[in-house]
């Protein structure tokens, strides 16, 4: 069983090595696409196994849990790995058109696949220190990708990104040290029971340390400032994969730790999370309203959407967790897609600054249709995926008489529509200020295919989730049940407990 768990980590890792060796030739990009396809296959296999057998766990290096490093996949891990693989395939195809040879020679494909390896590792590990290691793998690869090309804005954004993420890393490390000192274990399943014997007040302090560490990664208020400072600077395929995956690793870590380990004082920790969720939603969406660049608007919307997922975690009812899981999956698809579309707009209309582009609706109607799907899904229009995600969360909030937070969630949805229509009106409807007609046919046929196929694929996925939400909601329900009652998770890792 353990090879099945290790495979989604090993595949991108090997791909990265191969892509590094072939970075001087155009072969690298095809290796990257092939590697992502194999990863997709591996993650589908993993998902099938988890659906069939329940939570699966494997001990690396032959040391039994809780002493060795455990890899474990429950439904949430499996779906996160699967969605990561889907984004990896989409972005690696898109990169054929988006990433120039200069960046390839500097090792873009190697860094990209290393990033994917780190993300998958973080989703699949069952050991806290190992989670730290995967965070670092992800972080160092993202540093490289962010400043690759070395334009001054990238360096500028990179400094802020690196600085704040390193602070978060150290918080995480300190938290790990203190938790180990209190419980003597770092295995997450073992921690779930071991924390019961620890000093509960001290445990709350450690919980807050973890909340800050993961909060920086997830870009929640008031820790999100690195995100809008940097996400609009690198290549479009880079910001798409960052937007889709990186912050979600933080959300995943919060979701995992605050349902499995830190559920001892929910009145305190989850109340903080509720405030954080509300403020994140509001500040993010207001920040977006003030921006006039497509990528900056989208960056602030990442922040605001993270608030919804944290809201699900903060409410901690079964329905709320269902909403959070559903939101997580839907948002990765939609957000990565919007950044990919911004990349096409930049290529054919000459920028992402809204006042300097226009006319896309008239001259590139296909792109307009492809934009409408994720944009309206993000805003929560039925019947797209975002509607069901928001519906579940608002329903969960109303169920516990959270009138105010439900109101905030709805109002933020409304403001999201404002931002999306702003992009729509200025980039698509208004004529181009320079009078040119941005046409998709100005791209070479190879670039056109490489850019539009992943966008169309992700858009179709958004529509499928939206039109047929039933299986996805059922899946999210099963996954939420596993999160709220971690017995299966603990048993899979440690064996039957007396």
């Amino acid at each position: 069983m353990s090879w099945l768990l290790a495979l989604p980590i090993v595949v991108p890792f090997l791909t990265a090595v191969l892509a590094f060796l072939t970075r001087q030739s155009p072969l690298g990009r095809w290796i990257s696409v092939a590697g992502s396809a194999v990863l997709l296959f591996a993650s589908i296999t993993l998902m099938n196994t988890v659906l069939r057998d329940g939570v699966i766990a494997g001990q690396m290096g032959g040391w039994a849990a809780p002493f060795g490093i455990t890899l474990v996949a429950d439904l949430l891990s499996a779906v996160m790995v699967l969605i990561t693989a889907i984004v990896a395939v989409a972005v690696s195809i898109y990169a054929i058109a988006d990433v120039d040879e200069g960046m390839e020679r500097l090792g873009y494909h190697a860094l990209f696949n290393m990033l994917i390896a780190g993300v998958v590792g973080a989703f699949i590990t069952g050991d806290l220190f190992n989670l730290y290691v995967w965070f670092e793998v992800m972080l160092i690869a993202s540093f490289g990708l962010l400043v690759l090309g070395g334009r001054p804005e990238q360096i500028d954004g990179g400094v802020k990104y690196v600085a704040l993420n390193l602070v978060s890393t150290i918080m995480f490390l300190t938290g790990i040290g203190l938790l180990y000192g209190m419980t003597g274990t770092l295995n997450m399943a073992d921690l779930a029971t071991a924390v019961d014997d620890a000093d509960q007040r001290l445990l709350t302090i450690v919980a807050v340390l973890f909340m800050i560490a993961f909060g920086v990664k997830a870009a929640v208020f008031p820790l999100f400032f690195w995100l809008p400072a940097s996400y609009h600077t690198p290549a479009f395929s880079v910001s798409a994969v960052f937007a889709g995956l990186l912050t979600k690793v933080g959300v995943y870590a919060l979701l995992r730790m605050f349902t499995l380990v830190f559920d001892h004082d929910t009145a305190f920790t989850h109340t903080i999370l509720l405030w954080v969720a509300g403020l994140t939603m509001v500040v993010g969406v207001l920040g977006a309203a003030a921006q006039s660049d497509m990528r900056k608007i989208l960056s602030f919307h990442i922040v605001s959407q993270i608030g919804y997922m944290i809201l699900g975690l903060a409410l901690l009812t079964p329905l709320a967790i269902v909403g959070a899981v559903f939101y997580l999956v839907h948002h990765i698809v939609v957000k990565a897609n919007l950044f990919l579309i911004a990349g096409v707009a930049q290529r054919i209309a000459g920028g992402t600054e809204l006042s300097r582009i226009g006319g896309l609706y008239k001259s590139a109607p296909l792109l307009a249709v492809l934009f409408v799907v994720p944009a309206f899904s993000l805003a929560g229009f039925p019947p797209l995926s975002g509607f069901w995600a928001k519906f579940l969360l608002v329903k969960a909030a109303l169920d516990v008489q959270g009138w105010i937070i439900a109101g905030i969630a709805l109002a933020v949805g409304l403001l999201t529509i404002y931002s999306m229509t702003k992009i729509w009106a200025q980039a698509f409807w208004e004529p181009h200020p320079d009078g040119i007609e941005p046409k998709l046919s100005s791209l070479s046929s190879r670039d056109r295919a490489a850019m539009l196929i992943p966008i169309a694929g992700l858009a179709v996925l958004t529509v499928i989730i939206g039109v047929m939400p039933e299986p996805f909601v059922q899946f999210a329900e099963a996954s939420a049940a596993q999160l709220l009652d971690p017995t299966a998770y603990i048993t899979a890792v440690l064996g039957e407990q007396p």
Partner: protein
Amino acid sequence: MEFLFAITVGVMVSAAVYLMLSNNLLRFIFGLVLISNAANLTIFVSGRLTDGAPPLIPEGADAPLVDVANALPQALVLTAIVIGFGLFAFAIVLVFRAWTTLNSLTPDDMRLAEPEEAQK
């Protein structure tokens, strides 16, 4: 012994925070190095300190016969140091690059990616 280490960690963290709050990127990096070492010490101490008891298992036995030092925190700290080394190497090069391209080490002057007034 743990008490002494705890005080040391506290002093290191406060010095690090002082450095990190200054308006100079290089000082920020120095603060970061210092605080990461404080975090490493925290992990080291949380494994409890035992004097003069190397974690060696005598030949023929399956487990150490007497109370020995906890070897795990050392493995963790070693990993953290190696990772930290890589990250700081990158961070220092990035700061150097920022200095050569942006001609400044003051974060307040770094407004290229986020101009103060959105240019219309």
